[in-house]
């Protein structure tokens, strides 16, 4: 009912993600305040802002890894709290800056999304995906400790999308990568957005990524900067 009232107030269409006055407070410290945003399906939104401004906290709230302490957050027209968090996270996936790869091999990582859904591992799809990101089919059984930083990030990204989510939140996933890997990962994200229709939320400090942003939201001191959202 909350969201119906909200939509009745003005929005013409239902956005995929709607944040209304979202805030996050720890003790007396206000990390985020009054964040209001509409994000439509298929959009690519880039979040920028100084370190400690609250970008990652906001992303984790959207990914349901943290709960907001005030405001409303709806996904696909329903309050986020009405979803089972596990089912929600399978639709709204979150990728980390320095991903931890699980188990021993690349296979362990690409099989994980299938394993948690109790689905059989689609090895052919995994091999196709690996080849798409510039790795070989034989790399499926490569030990994760033998992967370079760029390869680790590619495997982690594949782990997020091997079973398509509707939203992919990427928290500075290109930070620490060399120019070549950075460009490659960015082109992959573009492919997920353009060709697979995945809604993308990226957090970045990289000036070239900020300049190239399709829609930019700047957050400073836990608030969206007026005019910093396009």
């Amino acid at each position, binding site marked *: 009912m909350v969201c119906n009232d909200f939509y009745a107030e003005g929005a013409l269409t239902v956005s995929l993600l709607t944040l209304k006055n979202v805030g996050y407070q720890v003790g007396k410290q206000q990390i985020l305040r009054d964040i209001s945003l509409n994000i439509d399906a298929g959009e690519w939104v880039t979040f920028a802002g100084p370190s400690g401004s609250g970008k990652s906290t906001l992303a984790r709230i959207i*990914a*349901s*890894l*943290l*709960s907001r302490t005030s405001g409303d957050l709806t996904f696909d027209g329903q309050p986020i*709290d009405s979803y089972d*968090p*596990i*089912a929600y*996270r*399978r639709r709204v*996936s*979150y*990728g*980390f800056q*320095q*991903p*931890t790869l*699980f188990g021993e091999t690349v296979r362990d990582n690409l099989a*994980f*999304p299938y*394993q*948690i*859904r109790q689905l059989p591992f689609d090895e052919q799809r995994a091999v196709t995906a690996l080849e798409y990101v510039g790795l070989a089919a034989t790399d499926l059984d490569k030990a994760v400790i033998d992967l370079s930083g760029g390869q680790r990030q590619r495997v982690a990204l594949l*782990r*997020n999308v091997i079973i398509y989510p509707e939203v992919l939140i990427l928290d500075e996933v290109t930070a620490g990568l060399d120019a070549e890997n950075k460009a490659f990962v960015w082109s992959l994200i573009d492919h997920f957005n353009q060709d697979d229709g995945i809604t993308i939320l990226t957090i970045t400090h990289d000036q070239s990524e900020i300049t190239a942003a399709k829609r930019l939201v700047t957050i400073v001191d836990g608030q969206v900067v007026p005019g910093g959202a396009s």
Partner: protein
Amino acid sequence: MNLAVNNQSLVLALGLVMIALAIGWKEKLGIDRDMIIGVVRAVIQLFVVGYLLKYVFRIANIWLTAILIFIIIFNAGYNAKQRSGGIPKALPISVGAILISTGVTLGVLMLAGAIKFIPSQMIPISGMIASNSMVAIGLCYRNLNAQFKQERQAVLEKLALGADLKDASRDIVRASIKTGMQPTIDSAKTVGIVSLPGMMSGLIFAGVDPVRAIKYQIMVTFMLMSATSIGSVLACYWAYRGFYNERKQLQVPSN
């Protein structure tokens, strides 16, 4: 009885505590107070329990025996809870895990005819089982706390991929169960080679044929293996959920 321990020899044996105290004092370990409290508590507790057991064994009442076993289990659970580092519901989890591990182990021993429901057998054996289960559960808790802090990023990533709490915690839970059981497994491997354990040594001191004494020790080894495995598995699987909130988000308990 081959062993003669009288009050005078106990007082002389107190000299051994003095050695420990002297080492603690010389090395500035800061544990002198703890050692003295430990020794005083041990002496008082053992004297009280000695007279209590003498009384309980003499009247041989089933209900009194059962009450004493429950007191042992509750105390073991309470002590295990003290090592939980703030894990929610640690007291009911610890008492429940020790109750079941002790109950199952005692039940199997009774069905096998190894022990009878008489106070002189049930109470000491319950104590042995409950205390080993308590130590195992304490180790499990310590490992759960350490691993959830150390592996926080991996757990978050699993949650972010849509893993349920069991999938996100599986590696940590398994490692913690293993940690809880490891001392019992190690001790089973070295029993008779490195150490002659308490029960077996006690029987030999008391003049029992060593071949007969080892049979008791084999039974003890089996029962401790069962008790620590059941206790560790139950405590870990009941406790890991305390590391998440109702929205299935990771929260490391505060001590």
